[in-house]
């Protein structure tokens, strides 16, 4: 029996780390478990997640009707039917006695204008003019829904499972698990930005499938990337060399020990990783024009821009999944229960130019075709007002978009009613985004299972065929 098979069988659902490593080391493009069943269109994913809940009506699904109906109660408009209890059923109230997730009845006008962009003429709010400028490369999904009425929905958008369900692997972990490495010197699943509700990805796949957390700090971008003590590079080289030779000598002593073999390789990879990663987050060789494209010249856009530029550099080097969270705080900065106008305007400004910069940069380098960019958030916001100037959580309908990786550009898919309350066509649960992404990577979601961990039908989702070109 070969080593991989033995490890796989011997651990039965536990300790897949060894397996992951073997996969990485093999550089198996089609995945360790032979999971790649359809020809892949994309190689990498850049996953952008806006924490807190972006208002869909004031971003990618503008609803001018709200301006006409402003101040009216939903019940007195022609949209009274949206609050039919039967239609509200699929949302689970997580927190008893919580102020969130209540019906907000008084319709609140749009806090920003919108206009049509590009040849496709897709309507985008004025808070996202740069992304609007790229709309012909984007497929907007306006009919997302989820079940979680509080920010545990962030967990749900990544894993498909409610925060109260047992934790299951996130999409990044599955991609990492299902695909082999394209670069033996770099981790394959990198994360940046703030994260709160769930800090691991692999769960039953094991911590080897967690994101490798990165900071934009060329000196020390990675935990344990350099010695926390007085050790010279030469000493380190000698140390790694000795460890390697001694471990190899042990192979004779323990001929069937697959772990020993895996450990030898893990030290080789570790040694390469610690020298490679800092180089990737060092932007010295990027041109001023490129940096400007990502918004390096403005304080507001620089932090997110740096993460996106790093993401592009990782994509160039074959990293599979880069997960970037935006919006600090426990709930997430986009959570505008009040002051929606100033809050969203500020946050949109931080991300709009860098994201557009990323799309343009990827495109000009010919990388957009093989890189899938996802823009998502945990839920939308209520068409009704909360307090004087905010909107509450709205899990019934919201927007996400995807670009590149063999998807259509300049299309919208799905729609909501005129006040953005419920999807009126093609509703998509969050895992449909996962399924679409996996499909483009050449993976069959149904092959993503390990013994002892049955997945539910809704965990797999369905690829959104209409946006696949």
């Amino acid at each position, binding site marked *: 029996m070969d080593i991989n098979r033995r490890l796989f069988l011997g651990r039965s*659902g536990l300790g897949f780390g060894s397996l992951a490593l073997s996969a990485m080391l093999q550089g198996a493009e089609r995945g360790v478990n032979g999971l790649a069943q359809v020809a892949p269109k994309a190689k990498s994913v850049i996953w952008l997640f806006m924490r807190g809940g972006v208002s869909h009506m004031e971003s990618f699904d503008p609803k001018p009707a709200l301006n006409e109906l402003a101040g009216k109660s939903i019940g007195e408009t022609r949209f009274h039917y949206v609050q039919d209890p039967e239609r509200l059923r699929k949302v689970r109230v997580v927190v008893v006695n919580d102020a969130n997730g209540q019906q907000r009845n008084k319709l609140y006008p749009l806090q920003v204008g919108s206009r049509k962009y590009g040849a496709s003429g897709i309507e985008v709010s004025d808070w996202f003019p740069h992304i609007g400028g790229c709309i012909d490369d984007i497929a907007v999904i306006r009919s997302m829904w989820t079940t979680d009425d509080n920010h545990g929905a962030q967990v749900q958008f990544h894993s498909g499972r409610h925060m109260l369900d047992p934790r299951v692997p996130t999409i990044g972990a599955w991609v990492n698990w299902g695909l082999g490495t394209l670069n033996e010197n770099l981790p394959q699943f990198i994360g940046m930005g703030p994260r709160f509700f769930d800090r691991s990805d692999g769960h039953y796949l094991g911590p080897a499938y967690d994101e490798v957390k990165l900071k934009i700090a060329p000196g020390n971008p990675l935990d344990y990337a350099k010695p926390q003590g007085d050790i010279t590079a030469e000493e380190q080289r000698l*140390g790694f060399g000795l460890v390697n030779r001694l471990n190899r*000598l042990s192979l004779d002593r323990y001929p069937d020990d697959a772990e020993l073999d895996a450990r030898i390789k893990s030290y080789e990879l570790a040694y390469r990783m610690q020298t490679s990663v800092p180089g990737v987050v060092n932007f010295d060789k990027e041109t001023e024009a490129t940096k400007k494209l990502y918004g390096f010249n403005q304080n507001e856009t620089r932090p997110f821009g740096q993460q996106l530029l790093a993401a592009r550099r990782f994509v160039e080097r074959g990293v599979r999944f880069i997960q970037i969270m935006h919006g600090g705080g426990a709930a997430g900065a986009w959570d505008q229960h009040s002051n929606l106008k100033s809050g969203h305007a500020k946050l949109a400004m931080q991300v709009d130019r860098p994201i557009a910069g990323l799309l343009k940069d990827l495109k000009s380098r010919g990388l957009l075709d093989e890189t899938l960019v996802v823009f998502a958030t945990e839920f939308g916001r209520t068409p009704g007002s909360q307090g004087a100037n905010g909107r509450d959580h709205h899990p019934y309908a919201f927007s996400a978009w995807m670009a590149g990786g063999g998807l259509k550009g300049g299309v919208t898919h799905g729609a909501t009613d005129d006040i953005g309350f419920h999807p009126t066509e093609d509703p998509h649960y969050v895992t449909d985004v996962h399924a679409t992404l996996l499909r483009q990577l050449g993976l069959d979601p149904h092959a993503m299972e390990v013994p002892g961990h049955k997945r539910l039908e809704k965990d797999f989702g369905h690829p959104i065929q209409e946006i696949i070109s």
Partner: protein
Amino acid sequence: MSASRSFLVPAVVVITAACSLVQGEKEAPSAELHEDYGKVKELLAAKCHSCHGALKQKAKLRLETRDLMLKGEVIVPGQAAKSLLIERVEDMGEDRMPPPEEGAALKSGEIALLRRWIDGGAKAPAGEPVRQGPGEHWAFQVPRRTDLPDDADNPIDVLLEIRRATLGLKAQPLAQRTILIRRLYLDLIGLPPTREQLNDGRPWESIVDELLASPRHGERWARHWMDVWRYSDWYGLDKQLRNSQKHIWRWRDWIVESLNDDKGFDHMIHEMLAADELAPDDPDTLRATGFLARNYYLFNRTTWLDATIEHTAKAFIGLTLNCAKCHDHKYDPITHEDYYRFRAIFEPHQVRLDPVPGETDFEKDGLPRVFDDHLGASTHLHIRGDPKNPDKSRLMEPGVPGILASFAPPVEPVKLPAYAYAPASRDYVQKDYLVPVRTEVETAKKKLAEARKNATAALREEAKLKPGEKTKSGPTQPDFSVQDDFGKHNPELWEVVGKGWVFKDGAVHQTTATRDTERLLLRPEVPRNFEMTCRYMHTGGATYRSVTFRFDVSPDRNYANYVYTSAHAPGSKLHVAYTRGGKSTYPSEGLVAQPIEIGKPYTLRLAVRDRLVNVWLNDKIQIAYTLPDRKPGGGLELSGFDATVAFDDFSIRALPGEVELTKSKNKEPPPALEPVESVEVSEARLAAAEARLASLEAVFAAEQARGDPGAYKQASKRAARLETEALKAAGEYESKAFATDAGKVKAARAKIAKAEKKLADTGVDRITYTPPRVSRKALETPAHKEGQYPAIYPETSTGRRLALARWMTSSSNPLTARVVVNHVWLRHFGEPLVETVDDFGLRAKPPTQQLLLDHLAADFMENGWSFRRLHRLIVTSGAYRLSSTSADADAETRAADPDNRFYWRMNVRRMDAQVVRDSLLHLAGALDFTPGGPSLDPGDAVRRRSLYFKHSRDQQDKFLKTFNDADHLQCYRRSESIAPQQALALSNGKVPIEMAEKIAGQVEGEDFVGPMFELLLGRKPDADERRECETTLADFEAAATEAKKPNPAQRARRGLVHALLNHNDFVSIR
């Protein structure tokens, strides 16, 4: 076959191979013939067996084998079209199988497979075994020991050898002694041996007994059980407690101590589930209920109870009860009703913090424990698991899963002592809560003495006055009035301090410019609210050239309020300022720039009401300022500062109430000093403090008398009366102390009135006292406030949890001992006997070593559920001591059982995260062995054992996490990955580098490589290894010399140690 293999190997092989591993490794001869049948069976198992299998047999139909299908008349061999099976799976209407709520319809390819197999004659191998009914499941039979001869070896070896001999497997020899000793140390105490210990020549059993008796053993195994029992420190959002409980470490300490005491596991279960019913007045035992308190969840009671149900069942009886939350269990004989009966056991319980001796602040310490709070809470089945949709028509009575209920003891309510339900009856609580009250009495006494002393001093001053003179003005005396035109010195009015004062020309002159030690001190005491007017002239002086009017001056002059004019140029001004503790403050809000000229007369008028000061200069209001505070009883002084001055005319009077003052603009600063209270206030304060003490003592006496109705009635009457009197006394004190604050006075009067009404109207007989709140119940939902919960808890407990615990530990319970023995085995051998450590349900196949598991489980129960005995049995077995290498092993054995399922050699394991870190520290002699106590913030600087780190969603040590630390949500078995991040942590982390340095310093002498290799890896290096080490040691030294580092030889040794710590065999248990 292991669970994982069944996923890759056709099902038909799995079934026949259950007892014959060796053949199972090869293809079944009839595989070709039955290829479709194998797939059919897989398909039916996935889609149909949950309803039409041994478990449920809906419509009396089973679909597990061809014979059963024929018996159920759902297939007609050769004629798919006539088979009911096909008809139903093809039905698109209401009769479709599986029904929509049970699963998706079969795909066309799957239906085609069924058709092909039936049309082909529905062929299947003969004599297929039929699965038994759920009651016959192996894990539901009480485990029995195997009878062995009296002189038999260790039963583990006997039972393992029976299987090995049958299969012709040859065991490896024992491992080398030092490797064995290292293995034993790491397993039993989680720390590596020293070189001396490695070469311990005593008999194996002596070393075993010594380690089992070591307090380190409890710490090592506590961490294993903390995994299984889901230990987590509290976490939430910022400071909001949402999960687990504060001070839950007390439960961790209970685990450690229980293991070190070798408490029977049956008792441990009793205590974890029901210590509050079993030992309600023993706080040490109550710590055990942290097991349940850990499940606390602020937001949703159902989520909370779901976790309690799921993990109590998984941890102790290895059943996935959680699968029956929404519907009957798909695989196990556990019904939807069973789930809610199990919930009913926990329905009444809640969590609270009890006070611990010496601490009354629950943020600092407390004992998290559970108790039955809502004795009458009813449980209803949630239809499809939806808590919004309870089936109100039926009440779910508490109970264990029906299939194993025959030996369940009856539920009997438990009467609790006052200690448990009225925590204020506890001696130590009373003592702790009385401390501040007694202190207040002492303070009040002291304050009263001070006030009296001040008053006496004032009286003495007064006595200095001549008889017949106007008596001294009291602080509030309204007719106080004094005037002086300084025509001549009036010694009754002014005390002249210092030199240079001259009375001439109808004025008093200060003729030398000093810094205000020379002063005129007004003898009569000035009322609190006064108005002073003075005409004067700056006549010369040095730098500041100020004239100062001080009031509220304390005898030591460290306290004063004052106003002055300064002729200092440039910047002459009028200014209100104050002195506190001898230091002067010159607030900018009290300053007004004013032209003050030498030789020009000014009239300064000063009005003071409470803290508000108004100052006029030449009849023009200039300053309105609020002082931080006023201290009564001080004097009034006139003086110059660096100035010569002539005072012409002076008058002062009590400020009439009708005079309106200008309000200040400055925000009132907080009082800088506690005012000295008057005798009257101090007396009231002492009275209030004494009344409070008497009241609290009476209340505590009443709390203590609970349980004796007669005495309690008397004591509570007295407590009620004294409590009311204390309320009145408090009101009286407050009305005096805050006399100037109308709002507070009003509140205080209301207090008095309330108390008086209580005493008068209802009579002392009927009024009741308020039991003090000395414990803190965890909020049931975020909408609640702690204050709305009663301070006294129910006097009985339902006894449900105790009955559950006794059912679990009944000798008739087939699961509990098996499950725990399996966990212990896993942690000694790296592999469990039953692969699914948290699921012993129907899907758990009989383990390869079932005789062994059963024997150990039975032995465990028969011997007081003693872990120590079990450990001893295991580690003294030959199996435990086998070599872990397959080098030089019998080739046939290696080929027949490569996965070592028959234990012909020892498995190699990787150290748990905690063992990696603790070993580094211990080898360096840096480990701090302090046991127990509050959890520590993770970090590289900590030197205590790793189990004492905080461990929660929000806090987990980074180094430990890298080495697969336990998941705080669920960890029945650690995962064991090999990731490059581990290599980075061990080679670049601060702890390994620091410890390498310390370890390197521990071996001295000529040969460094040999001893160090042995210390770190548990064996001596062979020639090749020694050569590599020696060479690199030299290279390290050369590199250090090259880099001009100090002490290159020692540095090279550190380099070698650091490399050996990164050796695979360091983190491995060989």
